[in-house]
């Protein structure tokens, strides 16, 4: 990385560190959403569709595994939104001062990536207090993919809709996508729900949580979805910060 990129990433991380609300959410949301669900659900087995098969899993394990992507999606979306909201106004000035489009994109993607790694780690640490995934590394990787997907969405939504509209969308969309349509307890989900951002990543996550096998297609689909969103995000960001 060149000097401009490392400086911008370092400054971006400092900006995160100086946002107490964001840091508080980082601690509070995983503990609240994952922890509260695990404590509240009854100690029974529930039927869930994992890798196309109907299996019975303990409700507490299911709650921990299921609420992890919900938490990560919400937090990552907010991190992406925050990143673009705090930097957009000055980023075109930074471009004018000498940052190339590549410098700036790499800097912001780097900062976003670091933020999502922290969000993922915070959520996974809370989740593993309640249950142990069958395949830990794939579980973490799938959670990270959910975070990247929603983090990039947060950036795009932040640029297009602004702060208020963006916050609503980034709180609402994980609820609809992950909580409703990717729910393994539900049956007969419509075909179009496969197009939603977290479909492949959550499938991979549930596989990793409750089976020892890894579904390469789900991981591949999640990676392709993330890369596709990243391309869109880079184009939108480039357009928003473009200078002559």
């Amino acid at each position, binding site marked *: 990385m060149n000097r401009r990129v490392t400086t911008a990433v370092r400054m971006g991380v400092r*900006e995160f560190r*100086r946002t107490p609300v964001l840091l508080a959410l980082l601690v509070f949301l995983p503990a609240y959403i994952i922890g509260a669900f695990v404590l509240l659900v009854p100690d029974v087995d529930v039927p869930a569709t994992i890798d196309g098969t109907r299996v019975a899993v303990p409700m507490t394990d299911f709650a921990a595994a299921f609420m992890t992507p919900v938490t990560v999606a919400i937090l990552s979306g907010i991190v992406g939104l925050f990143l673009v909201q705090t930097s957009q*106004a000055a980023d075109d000035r930074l471009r*004018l*001062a*000498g940052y190339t489009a590549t410098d700036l994109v790499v800097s912001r993607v780097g900062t976003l990536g670091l933020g999502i790694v922290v969000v993922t780690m915070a959520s996974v640490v809370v989740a593993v207090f309640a249950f142990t995934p069958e395949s830990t590394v794939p579980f973490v990787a799938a959670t990270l993919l959910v975070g990247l997907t929603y983090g990039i969405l947060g950036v795009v939504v932040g640029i297009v809709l602004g702060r208020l509209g963006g916050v609503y969308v980034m709180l609402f969309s994980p609820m609809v996508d992950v909580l409703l349509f990717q729910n393994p307890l539900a049956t007969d989900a419509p075909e179009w729900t496969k197009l939603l951002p977290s479909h492949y990543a959550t499938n991979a996550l549930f596989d990793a949580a409750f089976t020892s096998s890894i579904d390469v297609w789900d991981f591949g689909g999640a990676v392709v979805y993330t890369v596709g969103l990243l391309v869109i995000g880079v184009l939108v960001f480039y357009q928003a910060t473009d200078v*002559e």
Partner: protein
Amino acid sequence: MNIASKGDDAGGTANSSGDTVVSANSVEKTYDSILPFTRSVEVLDGATLHVERGQVVGIMGENGSGKSTLMGILAGVLDHDAGEVERAGSIGWCPQEPRLYDRLTVDETFQLFGTAYGMSDDEIVDARAWLTDVLDFERFRDRQIRHLSGGNRQKVNLSVALMHEPDLLLLDEPYTGFDWETFLAFWDLTEELRARGVGVAIISHIINERDRFDVVYELHEGHLHRQEIGDDDGLSSEPTDDDVACERTASFIDEAGAGSGQRATAGQEESE
């Protein structure tokens, strides 16, 4: 859109295109909306302007006349629909609203933008020492931008534009919120830059400061009307370049001349 930009890299050096550091020829700009039943706003209609090395140019006009749009186009952060903009050398742009990172300190802001300009650490330290001394905000160096007063934030905003000693300075109401001492320090600094050969374009509402400019442009109904400022304040309503007469220009400058005994303070100016 026809764009002919030279020296787009802000860290670049001046080229050999003569003494003009920025020229805009017949620039047009209309704000359109993709939403139905909303009207387009035509802001610039053939605006023409030139800034030479060592020249201090004032750009005046009523609220909403398009001064900040023109400045954004000159800086290269806004697209234009038609016309040509040519720049020579490095640019320092001070927007009307400070475009800074709120959660960075003053020192970090210098570090980030200095790196962007391609300055070494030593050069950044020297530039910071120079500007914090001249504009008197050395004691706020470790404070985050969001915790600064409006005037001090504006000092940082101005400093970011100045720190790499550009060939062209584009300042959009740079002294908003300055106290009187800083306001005077700003003009001393401008004189110093003029002597160094820096071309300076300033959007200003303070008509009574017109004697400090070499040339004043009034932006009215999308056109720029040029007025040379010299020993002989002969007034002319004729635009120099865009062939659109503007009687308002003469009266505008007449009023300024009549009121030249009154000195407005920086705090009295009206933000656009």
